[in-house]
């Protein structure tokens, strides 16, 4: 049966693997996902830091591990992703008060959740983080998976804007049903399509994440409507009317409608959006009104000066 009781591991607890005997010392709590609790741990042999996820339910955690393994296989094969450290380090069980708790050990990513990151660094960093995030999704999609439960809390950003998706508990193979989702970011919640795992499901969630980060008020109001009347039109309306979203308008519309060819296309469109017209707009916007006025005044003065000097 399910082990639904929650347990707390104090700092300094040594977690020893039942099968492989790996020893890890708990440093502190990192967070909690739908399938388990994540701790920062130190491997006793190498003194290296890792993140360790202890699962509430053996089966749920094992499906998550299976996904991680499959994604890792394609990552290693693929050329695009050239990360030095493997994501999944070890899988084992921990005997805690006579009960087996399944766990896996993964690479520890130092960083902040997307929302905190943007609050610290400023909203324009969404351009960088967004692109990295889309590239992560692209790797996943091209390997035949959809992330599913995409939300700001599941996106960790390093200080340089590199993105790591955490909590693979909601990842499903393309064509299957979405296992986990969160209301606002869910296509079904907005009556905008099925809960089938496919790239367009993630595009939609990504778009709502952007709206949530930049225009929280209007999104909240739209989400509070009667469920029957909620639709993706409400989101499109926010995208079209909200000033904060204007740089992303065209991209968000395509994402909400699921109109990209594939995630590569979505990446390219995002790149174009944040590099091309952005610079042009900056140049044109650089001439403020007072400068125009001053220039006109100086011209007049010059005219007067010439007139006067010619006159006398």
């Amino acid at each position: 049966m399910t082990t639904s009781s929650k347990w707390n591991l104090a700092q300094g607890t040594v977690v020893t693997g039942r099968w492989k005997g790996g020893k890890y010392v708990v440093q502190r709590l990192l967070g909690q996902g739908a399938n388990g609790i994540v701790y920062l741990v130190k491997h006793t042999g190498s003194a290296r830091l890792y993140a360790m996820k202890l699962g509430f339910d053996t089966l749920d955690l094992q499906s998550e591990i299976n996904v991680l393994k499959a994604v890792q296989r394609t990552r290693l094969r693929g050329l695009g992703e050239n990360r030095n450290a493997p994501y999944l380090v070890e899988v084992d069980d921990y005997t805690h008060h006579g009960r087996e708790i399944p766990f896996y050990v993964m690479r520890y990513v130092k960083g902040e959740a997307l929302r905190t990151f943007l609050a610290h660094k400023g909203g324009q960093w969404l351009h960088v983080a967004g692109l990295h995030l889309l590239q992560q999704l692209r790797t996943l999609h091209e390997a035949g998976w959809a992330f599913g439960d995409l939300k700001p809390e599941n996106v960790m950003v390093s200080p340089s804007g590199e993105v790591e998706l955490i909590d693979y508990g909601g990842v499903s193979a393309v064509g299957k049903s979405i296992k986990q989702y969160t209301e606002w970011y869910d296509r079904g919640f907005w009556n905008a399509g099925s809960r089938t795992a496919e790239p367009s499901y993630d595009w939609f969630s990504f778009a709502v994440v952007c709206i949530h980060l930049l225009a929280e008020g209007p999104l909240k109001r739209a989400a509070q409507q009667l469920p029957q009347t909620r639709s993706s039109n409400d989101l499109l309306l926010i995208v079209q009317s909200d000033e904060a979203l204007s740089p992303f308008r065209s991209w968000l519309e395509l994402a909400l409608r699921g109109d990209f060819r594939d995630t590569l296309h979505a990446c390219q469109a995002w790149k174009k959006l944040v590099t091309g017209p952005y610079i042009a707009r900056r140049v044109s916007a650089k001439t403020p009104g007072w400068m125009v006025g001053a220039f006109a005044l100086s011209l007049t003065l010059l005219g007067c000066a010439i007139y006067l000097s010619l006159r006398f």
Partner: protein
Amino acid sequence: MKQIMLITDGCSNVGESPVMAAALARQEGITVNVVGIVDYGTIGELGSVEIEEIARAGGGMSRMSGTRQLAQTMQMMTRKTVVQTIQHAVNKELRQILGQTDTAVEDLPPDTRSQVVEVIDELSETSALEVVLLIDASASMRPKLAAVEEAIRDMMLSLGARQGTSRIAVFHFPGAHSGEEAVMDMDWTTELTGARSIFQKLTMRGATPTGPAILKVMEFFRYGTLEGHGSSNWLKESDRGEGMLGDYVV
């Protein structure tokens, strides 16, 4: 795979014991899950004990939920029950293969476990599933029915995304007169479209005949499979499911 999802906010007060009815359902290979709705005030000591007992007898699980989390709760329970049903069957097979009496998926070394769970996941996604939603529509539930209906629509959306055939039917209880224990609001369906309200034949009655309503739904299950509703493909699939269920039913 067959499930009854009972949604109620209080205690039964008429007819056969719902715990007994749930135990019978389990013997027929139907898992009974119970959601207790706790929006306004509490559900009461007696109510919450009964809810737990019904679920235990029915081999399912029970949860308390407000109307806001209702959709999520129902889907989580349905999904978990599917996985558990398959897990029980797999555990049974494992015991036979390994010849040990207490082996379960959890006891396997991680590498072997990984393969077994892959099979369980695949079966959970592809096996045929039938869920009857049995809604308590006694007077106190009335203000919550709109939320219940919304949760049902949401659940159908999730089930519709599964690769296996999924269909649901909706019943409410009590009926218009004392002889009518449960009323069918919707026959087996694989998708919910249109804005038509699910609950239309509601009548005000104070009684809560939970037990008799469960028995009535069991009859519906029996009729549904015996009389051969749906395509032959569906029948073949549900036959296979029954064989597997037969293994683990105690």
